[in-house]
């Protein structure tokens, strides 16, 4: 290796250390998705130390990657844990909210197209990447606002982009309180933001709570069999929770399983952020496209609610549409806070939580549909 190569290599290593450091800083000081960003940041540092024994054939990070990401095991286990944590009650009490969970997936598909059109500029400026359809779909899935779904889809479609896609997905999820309000304000009038929505307490039977995860798995599985791993694991976790007879398993899934797998998943993702692969122009575009995805998600949800209002007698507050993304519970909190700011007597929390939970179902269905349509 000549002197110039050495300088370039060390410069790249220094940048990757800085990126790892920034992720650790965001996790500790800003508490942005700390359970993921902290291990990812440290994993990135471990992977970029010159001659690191943590990566390579026998490195523990490589072993973790092969054991849990290469074969999709970690995202699946995370889905079981997440399923055990989700209370679908607010959605089951207001099934109508399912439609907001669909509308707010608009960002996924809009970003997929934006990434493909970006490739048209590759001829004009060669540093602009020409993404393939699978790569564009993996970038679009950042708009699912759902980390495990992003990892699952991008590992299958574009493993070379896994690092930046995961970092973008988790970073923007934590930035929802900053991203959504300006978009919502831009698309709604103060009068619309002041619309009250009546809340009626409505009980859901245990039978429905137990049948719901089974029903979703069977319906989605029949329509898109490739999604069974993705949706089935989430719904298995939820069934453990709702059955009421395997409390120990449910608690283990929510705590021990979630914590251990999150740790392994984080460092293993961090290990993919080696300088040669991560410091590419495509990384910058993926980070930008991630923001586009969240903006279009929010806009899609709000505009859908406004269109619905043209036909509904009892108007919905269009801000509820923005809560249809999967970032739970941040998005619901944002909407509730904005409602209170506009009118202190306007409590939108329960409606927003319903839409937010619908977003968790919607995002995973969207991931499944992309897998089915492109695979």
């Amino acid at each position, binding site marked *: 290796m000549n002197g110039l190569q050495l300088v370039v290599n060390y410069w790249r290593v220094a940048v990757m250390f800085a990126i790892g450091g920034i992720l650790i800083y965001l996790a500790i000081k800003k508490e942005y998705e700390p359970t993921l960003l902290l291990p990812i940041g440290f994993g990135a540092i471990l992977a970029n130390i010159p001659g690191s024994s943590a990566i390579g054939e026998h490195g523990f990070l490589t072993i973790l990657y092969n054991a849990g990401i290469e074969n999709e095991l970690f995202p699946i286990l995370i889905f079981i844990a997440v399923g055990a944590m989700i209370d679908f009650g607010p959605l089951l009490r207001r099934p109508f909210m399912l439609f907001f969970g669909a509308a707010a997936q608009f960002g996924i*598909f809009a970003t997929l197209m934006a990434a493909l059109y970006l490739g048209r500029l590759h001829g004009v400026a060669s540093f602009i990447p020409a993404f393939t*359809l699978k790569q564009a779909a993996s970038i679009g899935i950042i708009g699912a606002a759902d980390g495990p779904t992003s990892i699952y889809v991008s590992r299958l479609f574009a493993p070379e982009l896994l690092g930046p896609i995961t970092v973008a997905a988790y970073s923007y999820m934590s930035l929802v309180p900053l991203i959504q309000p300006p978009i919502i304000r831009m698309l709604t009038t103060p009068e619309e933001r002041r619309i009250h929505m009546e809340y009626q307490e409505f009980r859901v039977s*245990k039978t429905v709570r137990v049948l*719901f995860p089974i029903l979703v798995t069977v*319906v989605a599985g029949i329509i898109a069999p490739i999604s069974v791993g993705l949706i089935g694991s989430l719904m298995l976790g939820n069934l453990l929770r709702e059955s009421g007879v395997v409390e120990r398993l449910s608690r283990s899934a929510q705590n021990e399983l979630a914590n251990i797998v999150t740790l392994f998943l984080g460092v293993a993702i961090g290990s993919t952020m080696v300088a040669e692969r991560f410091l590419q122009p495509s990384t910058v575009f993926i980070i930008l496209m991630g923001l586009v995805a969240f903006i279009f998600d929010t806009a899609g949800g709000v505009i859908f609610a406004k269109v619905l209002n043209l036909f509904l007698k009892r108007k919905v507050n269009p801000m509820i549409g923005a809560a249809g993304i999967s970032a739970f519970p941040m998005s619901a909190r944002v909407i509730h806070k904005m409602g209170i700011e506009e009118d202190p007597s306007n409590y939108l929390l329960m409606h927003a939580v319903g839409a937010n939970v619908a977003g968790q179902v919607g995002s995973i269905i969207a991931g499944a*549909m992309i897998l089915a*349509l492109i695979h």
Partner: protein
Amino acid sequence: MDHIAEGWLVSGVGLLSVFGVLLLLYFMLRVLMDIFPAKDED
């Protein structure tokens, strides 16, 4: 088919499918609620 045309197809069908699946779930859920209403022990 080029990437862009394929992208439009995937995006269009994908978004409609998400709405379709959730619409199906909505109706199934309503039916379930009617068949199994909440009782006191719930």
